[in-house]
């Protein structure tokens, strides 16, 4: 099935519903998964030795190189990266969505230019969102959306993230799904607002962002307004337009979504970009597929949950 659909970067695109893809288990996949964490430590330790010790410099460089190559190519050689691509295509197929394909490099660059704040690393905040694939679909309320997403291997320490979904035998290993959903509003908000989780370097005397009437919302989110050129706008400017967007119901919904998805939002005039994460703490292939398929649907619903309050 091929159809023309809305896209936040290209305006309109022609996309195809993906076929089901096979997920194959490599016999060494479990071993590689278990060794990824230790090899990452070997890489870091080797790097430290190479920098700080003259006598052991060669050994340090060797350890860092081996650890780095293992982390870089381990998943590729055991087919895990291919399996992740297959799971994303299967999730799109199961939901009747289009795409499930790799994001073109040029589009990634244009996305990075438009929603840079969603994709950058901040001190004391979650890992930055990385987008590798894209899906086009419609929510249950028939709202067309574009979704950028990726899956990465993760290992939970100290019980794992609080919003992790667990399935199958107990394990510390799993996958982290990163999402950005974009959709259009029925009106031009006349603002470019970035509503990000509060981060370590924006607290105390550095806490200079726009404030709403809610203490809880202000403690959860950091709000910045930007001009058309991307420059930060002074606090008072456009605040009326911003408050029209951040109604009490919008704020309450975003607080809830921050708990479940570590939500972050960019409202760019008439387009909303909603980003977040989902952690699946399982290595069972069928459970991973089911959880990802559900997460794709649920995340699109969550992203559009506050649409009518913004409009």
């Amino acid at each position, binding site marked *: 099935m091929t159809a023309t659909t809305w896209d936040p970067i290209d305006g309109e695109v022609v996309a195809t519903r993906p076929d089901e893809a096979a997920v194959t288990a490599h016999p060494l996949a479990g071993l590689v998964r278990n060794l990824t964490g230790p090899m990452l430590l070997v890489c870091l330790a080797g790097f430290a030795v190479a920098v700080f010790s003259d006598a052991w410099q060669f050994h340090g460089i060797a350890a860092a190189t081996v650890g780095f190559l293992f982390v870089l190519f381990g998943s590729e050689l055991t087919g895990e990266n291919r399996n992740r691509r297959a799971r994303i295509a299967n999730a799109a197929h199961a939901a009747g969505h289009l795409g499930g394909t790799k994001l073109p490099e040029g589009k990634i660059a244009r996305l990075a230019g438009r929603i840079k704040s969603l994709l950058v690393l901040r001190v004391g905040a979650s890992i930055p969102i990385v987008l590798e694939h894209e899906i086009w679909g419609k929510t249950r309320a028939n709202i067309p959306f574009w979704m950028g997403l990726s899956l990465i291997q993760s290992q939970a320490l100290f019980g794992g993230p609080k919003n992790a979904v667990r399935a199958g035998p107990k394990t510390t290993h799993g996958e982290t799904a990163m999402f950005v959903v974009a959709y259009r509003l029925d009106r031009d908000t006349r603002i470019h607002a970035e509503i990000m989780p509060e981060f370590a370097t924006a607290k105390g005397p550095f806490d200079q962002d726009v404030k709403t009437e809610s203490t*809880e919302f202000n403690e959860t989110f950091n709000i910045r307004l930007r001009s058309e050129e991307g420059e930060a706008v002074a606090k008072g400017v456009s605040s009326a337009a911003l408050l029209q967007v951040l109604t*009490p119901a919008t704020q309450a919904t975003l607080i809830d979504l921050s708990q479940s998805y570590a939500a972050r939002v960019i409202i760019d005039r008439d387009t909303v970009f909603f980003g977040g994460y989902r952690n699946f703490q399982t290595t069972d292939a069928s459970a991973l597929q089911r959880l990802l398929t559900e997460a794709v649907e649920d995340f699109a619903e969550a992203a559009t949950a506050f649409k*009518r309050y913004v409009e």
Partner: protein
Amino acid sequence: MLTTLIILVIIAIPVTWAVSQNALVAGRERVNEGWSGITIQLKRRHALVPNLVQAAQTAMSHENAIFDKLLGAREEAVRLMSGGTPEDITRAEAQLTSALNDFVSYAEDTPEITANENIRLLQSQLEETEDQIAAARRLYNGNVTSYNMKLEQVPYSFVAGRGGFERASLYDVDAAEFKRISADLSVAALGLGGGST
């Protein structure tokens, strides 16, 4: 050494006092802003009620005691909005909510009302307003809880006792009541959900 310590303590006390005072003032301001957020949504609800009643009367071509009760509750709520205490306002809004519930129950049994497109639009706006009130109430109560907790904590408690900072009251209208109106309007009375109740 002792002199330095004494100087540091002398500096630290007023600084801590000032920081605590500022934090409490900011907390009280957030409580006021939160209350303002609720009143904005309540006023929006007040503005919708006369239009809703007028549209219902037009659709039915006759008067009904439920309309009078609804308009009376609305008038009382509007009157108390300017000058009433938060407790008075809360009580009046609870009565308005009750009158709206009666109206919704009546509308469910009256096809002339549910079939009217204008009333559907007004009820849809009312439904969204009830969502906004419930959310504003939640945000306000969050502010109150945060502010009241500060009043009990050291060093804020020292400043609060001497600075005239008083505990704020929660907005206690049952959120479930607002939700009931929303659900009734969207699903049963308007038939928008496609299901039966």
